[in-house]
């Protein structure tokens, strides 16, 4: 097997909550290969968010190992983890987390500010990423001047700007209406087709169906790991729009 983009070995995360010992993850072994589109599913409290944070190097595991592109990132310091995130990982959040009163272009450039990328190069790469998500015309707009879907596109451009090995999306459609959500999923599928490795956390089976592999979590354990032929988000979007048209007609 080729080196996985990210792999976990007997991964455990424990919390201390009000004197109670909580085992949020109970020995997870997962390997994600380059070019995969993985959906992480499970009800709240299942450990999927904890798993996501560990994959994103936002947190350190209590036990076990995380290998990012074959390198052990388990025992790195906070500063070293920051550099790893800056170099290898792109984040998309449910609440977009854009900087207010800052243009779309500056928002997208943010990760490059914390790298050694020269400014002119940062601007050209951020511009490319905004073109890729279809917002080339709105580079000078502030988040408050953009719709929810557009804001999430800016966030996706920001996640892509450092050419990450792994794109992590935490409920990216959670704050959007169905149609916009489908548009965003269509964008993720396009990125997947271009060869990006994507891990997406969701509790909606409909959304998970657009991925090529589904991981099911329950009570801190991985209870399902299956590959499937992904549904087309483009087709779903078309279907949704036709249905709505039909509803308004009647």
């Amino acid at each position, binding site marked *: 097997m080729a080196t996985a983009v990210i792999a976990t070995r007997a991964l455990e995360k424990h919390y201390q909550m009000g004197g109670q010992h909580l085992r949020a993850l109970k020995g997870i072994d997962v390997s994600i290969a380059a070019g995969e589109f993985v959906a992480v599913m499970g009800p709240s409290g299942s450990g999927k968010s904890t798993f996501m944070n560990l994959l994103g190097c936002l947190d350190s595991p209590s036990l076990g190992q995380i290998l990012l592109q074959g390198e052990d990132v388990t025992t790195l310091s906070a500063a070293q983890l920051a550099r790893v995130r*800056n170099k290898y990982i792109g984040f998309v959040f449910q609440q977009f987390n854009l900087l207010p009163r800052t243009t779309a272009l500056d928002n997208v450039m943010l990760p490059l500010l914390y790298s050694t990328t020269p400014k002119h190069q940062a601007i050209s790469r951020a511009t490319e990423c905004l073109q890729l998500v279809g917002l080339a015309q709105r580079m000078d707009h502030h988040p408050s001047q953009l719709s929810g879907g557009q804001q999430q596109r800016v966030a996706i451009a920001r996640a892509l700007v450092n050419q990450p090995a792994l794109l992590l999306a935490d409920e990216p459609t959670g704050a959007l209406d169905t149609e916009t959500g489908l548009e965003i999923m269509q964008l993720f599928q396009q990125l997947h087709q271009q060869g990006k490795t994507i891990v997406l956390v969701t509790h909606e089976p409909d959304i998970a169906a657009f991925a090529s592999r589904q991981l099911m979590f329950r009570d801190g354990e991985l209870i399902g790991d299956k590959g499937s032929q992904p549904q087309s988000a483009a087709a779903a979007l078309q279907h949704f729009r036709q249905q709505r048209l039909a509803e308004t007609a009647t």
Partner: protein
Amino acid sequence: MNSLTLLNVAAVALRVNLLRSILTMLGIIIGVAAVIIMLALGAGARYDVDQQIKSLGGNVFVVFARGRFMGGAREASGSSQGLTEMDALAIEQQIPQVNVAAPTLRASGQLIYGNLNWAPEIHGVDNRIYAAQSWQVVEGRTFSDTELNTAARVAVIGQTVKRELFGAGDALGQTVRVNKMPVTIIGVLNSKGQNTQGNDQDDLIFMPLDTVRKRIAGMTLSSPKAIRAIIVQVEDERDMADVEQQMDSLLRQRLRSSDSEPPFRIRNLSEMIATRSETMQIFNGLLAAVASVSLLVGGIGIMNIMLVSVTERTREIGLRMAVGAEPKVIMKQFLIEAVLLCGLGGAIGLALAVAVSLSLQYFAGFTAIIELYVVLMSVGFSCLIGIFFGYYPATKAAGLQPIDALRYE
């Protein structure tokens, strides 16, 4: 991420919350302005007092001839003449820090003009007295060399004498009698008013040394050039002690005195200067106390707002950390923000202080002097306040866990 980029990020953050930034800066602005204005007025007051003391002769020594022991009985000070005009000349020429050394004699007598009479202090002087005691002749002229050399019967009078004898009338060219000798008034001095002891400084009359020596005093003088006192003006007040020592050894040498009690006595106004600097120290201490309180309050305001800012921007901090900002970079960002707030506040406070000081000077008649060190110190100090009070909020921001910060509602 270099410091310039961080500065830019901080500037953007401050601009985004413009009103809040200005209100926060207000504490520092008022603090710095208050400090600078108070120090400017303090320096101005000090300057005024210095000028006053200078006009009184703060940089002046008086060397008296001391009374000698004569068979056990001690004569009055100055009655036995040891000092001569040569000694005055020697002090002036051999001690480089001395501006001028004016020889003087004193006599007493009655002035009579018409049916009026008056008894001022009668001084025998040469033309160096004007420089030594900061006198100006406002009417008429000073003595000519011929008048000085021939013991001419001429006089320059003080304002009080003029008022008492001539009232509002013209004094120049008038003849008064001094101990029955007719003397022509050739000049009138400027007015100095009372000295710190309440004595009228304008109640005097100047005549050439020889005139007093030969025609008025009726003194039995031990030397034809004998004088009673030398008034010595020093260029710089700070050289007073040094000059005193030099004069002491010079005069001991010239008068061949090795006694513990030399035949002269040196007095100055250093007591007055000591009092002045003591008062100034208390004044400056008070100013410093008020200044530090106002800056402290401003600094606490900065810390307060920075803490609010860190809390309010927790998600932003989380995001920045998620996309790769190291904790120390976050720390730097917030520190720079605090320093920028304080530095800007300091600069605005400085501008305000300059404006207020200038208008106080023009409209209220205060003397205000803004010294360079005050400017550098207050702006530098406000930046230090930024570092000091920005440190805790910055540490708090840097210590946040990215996941907790991202989830913060």
